[in-house]
């Protein structure tokens, strides 16, 4: 696989963030925070009648992008910050760009900036990742 600094990682799109998936996720995480499953609570704290996507779910869209690009065993590290919330109904695109290529223990690694894009907004999530680049 040919990869160079500056390359764009192919986008991965979540057409509409799903409140139902947030509820399933809350059960799996044993997460009691109602902002993920009770829109009335979220409305009271000023986000409108929505539910707030779990941070790891937003991060997972970038994982899916990386898996589609370099394979399901490729991720070595992800560092993520969460400046803005993602709400149900949002259209989110996971994006990334290669910032460095290096060798480590016989593996060719790509360091990448990764983020979520939402039209009309700053990136709600942004961070970095390191993946193994397949031959």
């Amino acid at each position, binding site marked *: 696989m040919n990869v160079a600094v500056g390359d764009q990682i192919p986008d991965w799109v979540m057409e509409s963030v799903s409140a139902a998936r947030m509820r*399933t996720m809350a059960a799996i995480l044993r997460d009691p925070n*109602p902002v993920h499953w009770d829109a009335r609570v979220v409305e009271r704290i000023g*986000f409108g009648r929505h539910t707030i996507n779990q941070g790891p779910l937003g991060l*997972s869209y970038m994982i899916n992008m990386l898996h589609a690009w370099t394979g399901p065993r490729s991720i070595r590290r992800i560092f993520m910050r969460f*400046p803005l919330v993602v709400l149900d109904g949002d259209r989110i695109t996971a994006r990334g760009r290669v910032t460095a290529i290096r060798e480590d223990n016989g593996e060719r690694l790509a360091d990448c900036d990764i983020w979520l894009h939402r039209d009309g907004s700053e990136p709600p999530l942004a961070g970095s990742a390191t993946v193994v680049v397949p031959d």
Partner: protein
Amino acid sequence: MPAAPTPDAIAALVGHEFPGGEYTIAHWENFLLTECTGAEPLPDGLAHPVALFHVPILGAKTSIKEMFELGQAESDFSIGIESYDWEIYRPLEEEVAYRITGRVTAADRRSQDGRTFDRIQFRFDLAQPDGAPAARATITWHYGRGQRPNARTGDAS
């Protein structure tokens, strides 16, 4: 609203260890988790890496609720995420009994952009059944003090 803990009480959290234990990602759990992400199931029994949020917490025998309480969170809405840092030494797999330890690695009071919060960092290490390192997950949360929740970041999971 309960009184905020003292800065010394927050700093004293450093070194706190959770009981630790084992966690096995069941196939059904991985299937549902992966479906939540919008992806198809991964091949060969691989677990979706998003499991690196809840598996360390539950495997260390703690919970999101207990982590909120440990830092004396004022409410569910008073906690914001600073960062998650996941290091993966071997891809996670279903039906493997990971050995998990967890502890508080940093805790201090800070003021920034006109708000006061306690920054608490948790580190969890996952090992294969033979003891080989599998992954490390570092969670850093901000516990807001005496103000409305951060209207931009909202939640902590």
